[in-house]
């Protein structure tokens, strides 16, 4: 077999491509190892506490990326389209949670006029905020699919992408018109005050593990487990996997394909909404454009893990979060360039594993 392939003339350029890949890989790896060595052992700017701090913030960020990335993976697995408006769906959920917190903060608690409702019943308030955020996002996802994507089900592959871009522009500007262009501070209940947390001594310094961070990370892990159970164990999950594999056959087996696609968008909206409220609680700022960057990053994460592959999206999200926070320090590069490092790693990973870290869950003929 290999002898046959060698006689085909294109093999020469393919080899050129292979050689380039290996040269680039070797050079980049050498530079990275050298930088890592000099930063960690020679310069030793950061103590172990700083490294732990970077790792923790990376995990928290990665958890949120993973939640959004799952939304991309779910939709991609079923429709083979990049849901470009997913970041905006997340932004709407973020606003949903914001308004619940603001509203509850304006209402005095029943029976205790010194406290606002938000701080008298913080658990209930957080629950309400998440339910609202997830509800808003899932509604947005549902209608997005119904209005902008369903009529294009049989169109060429790039057409829904442009429709998604249009929807994304529409939602961004609609949010700007509705809520104004200003950046707003997310109001948290007192027990989730930003920047406060447990102090853990590590090495010479202490590391603050923020309450918001732990909360976000635990919640995102729980949601990921729930999603995994849903996809693997329930009837809906089985239907989703069937539709992802082959729509026509799934329809012949009595699965309502349209309904499954709608529900997929609802589920990805729920995850995006939860990620949005978490993002608000942890990062503290909400405005109309905030969905854009996390959306792009999460899409990157989804590709990094292998498009359409749900565990891949989780791994990709965590990996991207870690790279973003540890990368600049590890390579001794300015923190301005964290996105450069993230995207360079992405390119490197894809050069050597062209279908993502965990590989894609699709067969080739579908693309």
């Amino acid at each position, binding site marked *: 077999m290999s002898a046959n392939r060698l006689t*085909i*003339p*294109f093999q020469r*350029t*393919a080899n*050129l*491509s292979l050689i*380039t*890949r290996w040269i*680039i890989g070797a050079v980049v790896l050498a530079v990275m190892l050298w930088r890592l060595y000099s930063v960690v052992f020679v310069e030793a700017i950061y103590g172990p506490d700083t490294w732990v701090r970077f790792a923790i913030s990376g995990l928290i960020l990665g958890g949120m990326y993973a939640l959004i990335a799952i939304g991309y993976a779910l939709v*991609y697995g079923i429709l083979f389209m*990049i849901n470009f408006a997913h970041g905006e769906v997340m932004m709407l959920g973020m606003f949903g949670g914001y308004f619940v917190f*603001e509203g509850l903060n304006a209402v005095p608690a029943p029976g205790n006029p010194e406290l606002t409702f938000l701080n008298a019943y913080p658990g209930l308030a957080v629950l309400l905020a998440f339910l609202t955020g997830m509800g808003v996002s899932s509604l947005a996802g549902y209608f997005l699919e119904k*209005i*902008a994507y369903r*009529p*294009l089900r049989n*169109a*060429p592959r*790039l*057409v*829904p*992408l*442009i*429709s998604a*871009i*249009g*929807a994304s*522009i*529409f*939602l*961004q*500007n*609609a949010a700007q*018109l*509705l*809520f*104004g262009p200003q950046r707003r501070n997310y109001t948290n209940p007192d027990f989730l005050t930003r920047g406060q947390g447990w102090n853990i001594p590590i090495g010479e310094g202490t590391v603050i593990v923020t309450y918001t961070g732990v909360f976000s990370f635990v919640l995102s892990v729980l949601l990921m487990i729930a999603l995994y159970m849903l996809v693997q164990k329930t009837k809906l999950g089985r239907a989703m996997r069937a539709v992802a594999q082959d729509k026509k056959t799934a329809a012949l087996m009595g699965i309502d394909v349209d309904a499954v696609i709608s529900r997929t968008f609802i589920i990805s909206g729920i995850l995006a909404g939860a990620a949005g409220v978490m993002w608000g609680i942890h990062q503290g700022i909400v405005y109309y454009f905030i969905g854009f960057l996390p959306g*792009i990053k999460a*899409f*990157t994460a989804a*590709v990094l893990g292998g*498009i359409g592959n749900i565990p891949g999206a989780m791994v990709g999200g965590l990996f991207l979060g870690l790279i973003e926070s540890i990368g600049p320090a590890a390579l001794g*590069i*300015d923190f*301005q*360039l964290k*996105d*450069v490092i993230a*995207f*360079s790693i*992405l*390119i490197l990973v*894809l*050069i050597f594993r*062209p*279908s*993502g870290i965990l590989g894609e869950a699709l067969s*080739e003929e579908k*693309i």
Partner: protein
Amino acid sequence: MTANPVRNGLRAGAIFAVIVVFLTLIGFTVTGSGLIAKTLGSAVSGSRLPSPGYLVVFLALLGIWGGSTAARPDPRGDRLSTSAVAGLISGLVIGVISTVLALVFSVLLANKVDPRAYLSMVSPDSMRLFLFNLHEAASPAVPAALHLVLQLLAGVLGGVIAYAVRRLSIRQAAGSRLRSISDNIKSNELVEWFQRTPYAIYILYAVIAIVLFFLPRQWGSYWNYIIGTVGIYVILGLGLNIIVGLAGQLVLGYVAFFAIGAYTVALLTAPQPHGLYVNFWVTLVIAIVLSALTGLLLGLPIMRLRGDYLAIVTLGFGEIIRILLRSDLLTSFTAGPKGVRAIAGPTLFGRPLTSDINFLYLIILAVLASIFITNRLQNSRTGRSWMAIREDEIAARASGINTTQSKLLALAIGAAFAGLGGVLFASRNQFTGPEDHTLMVSINVLALVIVGGMGSIPGIILGAFALKGLPEMLRELENYRLMVFGGLLVIMMILRPEGLWPGGHPKLEKAPERELKVPETAQQVQPEVEGVKNASKP
């Protein structure tokens, strides 16, 4: 779809009620009524609100639309009553929701609450307008009831109109009228001559050349600027069309090559940060070559990636370039986030060509050259091999096409066009900075290629006008322009998924059909064979 008028009415009513509430909350009721006032010939001064009468017209139009949407044809016999009932119910839903909104607004106004802290476009003025300026004169029930009555009437009217349009077959009448007009035009002698003559295409070219020559002198500099932008985007679109439309490789980081072109001319000609003062035409060539080389170098390791992996890698590359351009690391080389100023314009025999009219001529020339080159490429052996790769990469490889080389060539040529566009862009604005090279540029170019129709050159020109010209034409809509633009993008894709002027897959795969000559002997043999078959059957 069942033809239950109640259900149809409820559904249409709910949709339009949401639209009315949404438009009110984003303050479009004010702008919309203002637009109606302007169309009806009433002068609206900048800051004053339009009179409530125009709001009534605006809301009534929405209600009529809702009512006519609700009044679907009834397959069991189209009756006026069902249409009217559907319209009435739709009006009822819209009316009740508007009433609730009106009551909320009157309560807010009475308590002097300014919702602008949360809903930025709902000012007290716009709330007063929504209550038809009646909140002080009367109890809150009056404007609320007025909304309900208005929507009920509009809904019924909409239902009746929809019914009338169906019954009187106004659509068919309009269609046949149009057809007769077009027949008249076609049967006109001059038009017939034009269709027959072989010189038609040259006449068309001559007309276009004259228009392109004289129009830049007629427009003001504002329109020259817009048309220049459209021209630059046509060049970018033609380049991306080679990569996406012909070779079928999704590239989302096209802006990287644009940035390389722009920064090459900027760094080589501007007095800051390097002060090299190289001649514009030299830098033009350098920029194009550099962009193409970048495309080649980027393509070498990644060209085996498929579909969306390629998209995300190129997207990442575009972002890397932008972030590097603005980073502190390269500030001494690229002037950092504040950008490069005073970029030189082109000169011709020592005379500067920087006036907007001259520059527009330059852009038009560049566009014509690009169209010529892409057209020749598209019909060449290379172009056909690109299309083969687009249709089926494995089959293309099996038929002896060197796919890696072809794809690399497509990327390099596409990148060269982006470099040209970048040079023109930076040199015309005499400035370029990292914020000129965001992801939105790539997305815009991709959108114009697809909106126009992939793989079609006239489509790309149309797409460039739609994507860069349309937002300018929507200036009338002020703040709502981008939102409307996004919505239109979705609607355009739904109505014409193949693009405004689709490329039409060339019929390369089919040889022209030939008449098969059946030999006479064969025809004589035929009945015998039949007979044998029949004989052997029983």
